[in-house]
């Protein structure tokens, strides 16, 4: 009767290990590929829907959202999922720019509720807007956003593909973990950039893994996978055109370079900065650079 579990989940969130019966089943990947486009924003909204909001504002709100997610140690998928909600909402509802931060907060709120065991609170998110938004407004607009998304929240994000892709690459376990960390950083980077908003998540995932492998220079030296062989293998896994994938990967790399340049850092070429990225070997470095 006096049973009491005093065990504390010492700061770390408990996660289930990847389920082999899901990751190894081809049908799961096939289904993900089949339904992913349903969750893309319906149009490139800066041209056809929004009058007040400019691309640089999306970048501003995205950067703020990413920083909030990082500080609150949200699960990796929360930020890309929140950006998916934001883009899908903006593709249907003309929004004044003074509502954009509220919308961003609502999207984090929803994504956090969907993906996390202990979601972020409305109060905390309002503090992050410097109290320019009230908790009640956040809750009100949560309903509006849900309605416009048709309560369709379980969107597919690039993260859903990562395990499926990594499983098919011939790298040792430690390298795979490193590739995964870097790929996750690239995915977050892509979510801050509107150019990737209309790309299917599978392509962003494949491009991010490709960029991570190249960045870690695992495609050189004794490895069996040279650049082109790797690209072809990746393209085959997610049924992407080789040329599209190449273009996507190059785009990711160039976004990384331009993000690195924005931050006061000793100037260096791309490969050098990628080396620096390796050495710290934390998943957050690309995103830290992004701040």
């Amino acid at each position, binding site marked *: 009767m006096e049973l009491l579990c005093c065990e504390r989940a010492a700061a770390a969130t408990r996660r289930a290990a990847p389920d082999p019966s899901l990751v190894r089943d081809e049908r799961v990947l096939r289904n993900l590929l089949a339904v992913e486009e349903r969750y893309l924003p319906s149009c490139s909204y800066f041209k056809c829907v929004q009058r007040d909001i400019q691309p640089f504002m999306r970048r*501003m709100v995205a950067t703020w959202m990413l920083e909030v997610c990082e500080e609150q140690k949200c699960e990796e998928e929360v930020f890309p999922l929140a950006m998916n909600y934001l883009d899908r909402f903006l593709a249907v509802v003309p929004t004044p720019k003074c509502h954009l931060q509220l919308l961003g907060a609502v999207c984090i709120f929803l994504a956090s509720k969907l993906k996390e065991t202990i979601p972020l609170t409305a109060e905390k998110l309002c503090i992050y807007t410097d109290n320019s938004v009230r908790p009640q407004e956040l809750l009100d607009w949560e309903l*509006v956003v849900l309605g416009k998304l048709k309560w369709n929240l379980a969107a597919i994000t690039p993260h859903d593909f990562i395990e499926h892709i990594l499983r098919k690459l011939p790298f040792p376990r430690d390298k795979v973990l490193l590739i995964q960390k870097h790929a996750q950083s690239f995915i977050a980077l892509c979510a801050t950039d509107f150019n990737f908003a209309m790309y299917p998540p599978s392509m962003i995932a494949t491009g991010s893994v490709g960029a991570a492998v190249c960045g870690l220079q695992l495609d050189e030296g004794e490895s069996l996978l040279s650049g082109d062989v790797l690209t072809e293998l990746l393209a085959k896994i997610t049924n992407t055109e080789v040329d599209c994938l190449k273009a996507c990967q190059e785009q990711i790399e160039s976004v990384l370079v331009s993000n690195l340049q924005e931050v006061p850092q000793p100037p260096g070429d791309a490969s050098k900065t990628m080396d620096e990225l390796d050495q710290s070997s934390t998943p957050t470095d690309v995103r830290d650079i992004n701040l």
Partner: protein
Amino acid sequence: MTRTPKRELKEMPLSQGDIPRSSCSRKLCRNLFGPVDHEQLQNDFQSMMKAELKEAQRKWNFDFETETPLEGDYKWEKVSHFKVLSPQELLSHSKENSCVGDKTLSSPVLLQIHAKTDNPGQGSFEAESSRHLKRKQTSIKDFYSSKRRTIPYKSNP
């Protein structure tokens, strides 16, 4: 004495919740796009919710505010005998379909929906049958095809 551990148990989720979340750092607490017009926000919220309600009213030919049926594709029927059902009876009803209980109880006026195309002989007053009918109308296949159709005109609301 036995109360103390109980209380601790109750508090555990909260205290656990505090561990992984850090406090908000000053530099991140910022207002990105200037002052928020709370009145406009409230007005926009009201008008969007109204539009949503209107859309639902049109779709289901039912006025959800006054809970009255309107002219349209669906024929709405009042389900009156549920009011006199005791909780036990309701429980025995909902055993077959666990969703039924809360759904029907939450609404002050209980209504049942039939599509016109449905067999009139099915017009019983059973909540279960209403659930089955609803399911028929929103099978996964219907849902997906209707999703597809909405995409083209989503872009110009």
